[in-house]
């Protein structure tokens, strides 16, 4: 009793001494810089979005009110960009989360050479976007020299001109190839923390593999799947490099997503006001997702 008492006393003193360490100077640089990084561009984007501001036409300036927004909202390009953004996002999410879940279960089974197979299958995630996109565009999907074309010809089918005939499908394919390993990696990690006894018990009770998957594995993975969906959403809203080096948003505006539209407006048409309004829309979209993400991560945070 006495011992524990003195021990808790010393931690109390230690704790008090601890509080004597001034944490403000330690925190200030990180917090300050992050605050600036968040607030300055945000305020500037909002400000510009209400201005007439064109880099090549200095006479056209001043307060624009909601003009940039009304112009943007009545512009069919915005709606097609929004649709493209959501199609890209939705397709990649379905493919990577669905495929990732199945692959995670598969790669969690014991099999020959599992270590090496796992390394191979997660490798695409470490390929930089520009390399991934060009590798697919030139080496795999090229209508004449690509491997896929050769395979199709080999089995008697006519090759597909991927980026002309199926532009969005091609971008979805490339981006899914990059993000499937991400989903797999996260879900596999989550599976490994699963309670083996529970699984054994279910197997003893004669549960079949499919039943086990739906009633034990999937509920266990629910949180991890949520995190994957939300992390991917944040990144997929800004898919840019893959589009720039393959289709440049085309043909027409078939693969122009919100990120690419803002890029075109800002850096090719120099319409800062319009681009900023597009940026604000992207921020609003991301915030809807982020609110869910932060809440789900907060639940797991112990301080």
């Amino acid at each position, binding site marked *: 009793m006495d011992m524990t008492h003195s021990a808790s006393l010393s931690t109390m003193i230690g704790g008090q*001494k*601890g509080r004597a*360490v001034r944490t403000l100077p*330690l*925190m200030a*640089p*990180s*917090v300050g*810089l*992050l605050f600036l990084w*968040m607030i*300055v*561009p945000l305020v*500037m984007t909002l400000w*510009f979005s209400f201005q007439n501001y064109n880099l090549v036409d200095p006479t056209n300036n001043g307060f624009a009110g909601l003009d940039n927004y009304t112009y943007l909202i009545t512009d069919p390009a915005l709606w097609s960009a929004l649709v493209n953004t959501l199609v890209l996002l939705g397709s990649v999410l379905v493919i990577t989360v669905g495929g990732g879940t199945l692959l995670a279960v*598969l790669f969690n089974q*014991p099999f020959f*050479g599992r270590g090496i*197979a796992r390394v*191979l299958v*997660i*490798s695409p*995630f*470490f*390929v*930089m*976007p520009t*390399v991934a996109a*060009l*590798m697919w565009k030139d*080496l*795999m999907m*090229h209508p*004449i*020299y690509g491997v896929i074309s050769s395979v199709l010809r080999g089995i008697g089918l006519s090759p597909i001109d991927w980026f002309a005939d199926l532009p969005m499908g091609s971008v979805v394919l490339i981006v899914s190839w990059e993000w*499937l390993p991400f989903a797999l*990696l*996260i879900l596999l990690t989550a599976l490994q923390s699963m309670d083996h006894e529970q699984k054994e018990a279910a197997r003893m009770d004669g549960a079949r593999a499919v039943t086990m998957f739906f009633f034990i594995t999937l509920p266990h993975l629910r949180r*991890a799947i949520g*995190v994957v969906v939300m992390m991917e959403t*944040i990144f997929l*809203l*800004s898919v*840019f*490099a893959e589009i*720039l*080096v393959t289709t440049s948003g085309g043909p027409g505006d078939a693969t122009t997503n919100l*990120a690419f539209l803002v890029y075109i407006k*800002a850096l090719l048409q120099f319409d*800062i006001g319009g681009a900023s309004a597009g*940026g*604000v829309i992207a*921020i609003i979209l*991301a*915030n809807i997702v982020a609110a869910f993400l*932060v809440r*789900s*991560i907060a639940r*797991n945070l112990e*301080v």
Partner: protein
Amino acid sequence: MQQQFRQKLIISIVAWAIAIIMFFPIFWMVLTGFKTEVDAVASPPQLFFKPTLESYAEVQQRANYVFFAWNSILISVGATICAILLAVPAAYAMAFFPTKRTRKTLLWMLSTKMLPPVGVLVPIYLLMRDAGLLDNRLALVIVYTLMNLPIAVWLLFTFFKEVPHDILEAGRMDGAKPRQEIWMILLPLALPGIASTALLSVILCWNEAFWSLNLTSSSAAPLTTFIASFSSPEGLFFAKLSAASTIAIAPIMVFGWMSQKQLVQGLTFGAVK
């Protein structure tokens, strides 16, 4: 027993087939890098050919590959060092002296990651232009430092929390100042954690392609931007593209293989362990 073996065999075949399909584009690219331009576009595609280092040599001679690789190294390592230097004191303060606000601060830091780059492209571009930092390595170092700072703080925070408090307290009793405490006691103990945080940060910087494509063009261009220049439709340089790409992704892929566990923690902010 027999049946168990058969099941394992079937799983092996399916899993390996998927692994090979996923890895095939990378494998094919590495292979193409050792071909001549003529062999690279041969029809049907050749699996067996006379390997040559021609394309590697030409990528260096014509495009000065090493220069872009050097940019990539300077930018990723520079941004990583800055992020870690900023993150260590903050993570130390939050891990060892948590207050009521610590939880909120951590979540707020995370939320800064949620701002989509495209939403702030315009102001960052204009700020960099006015500061004369367009096509300047410093611009990317600044952006990447701030981009990775929340991840670094989070990861270091989780690693620091695993360091026994008693050891640090003992040092404090002996009169160590916070700076000494961090340098002499905490850092040596948390070195593996710091190393994996740095590794993750380098991987993310190396592969970042939104800001590098928008803020650099030639003199500060890292490999992501350099590789994008192969997308021009004039002439198809499959072998050279493959050679350049292979060296661009090789080091990071090895890093990635090494740090899978930390990667998961870092990318999910500790929500998946």
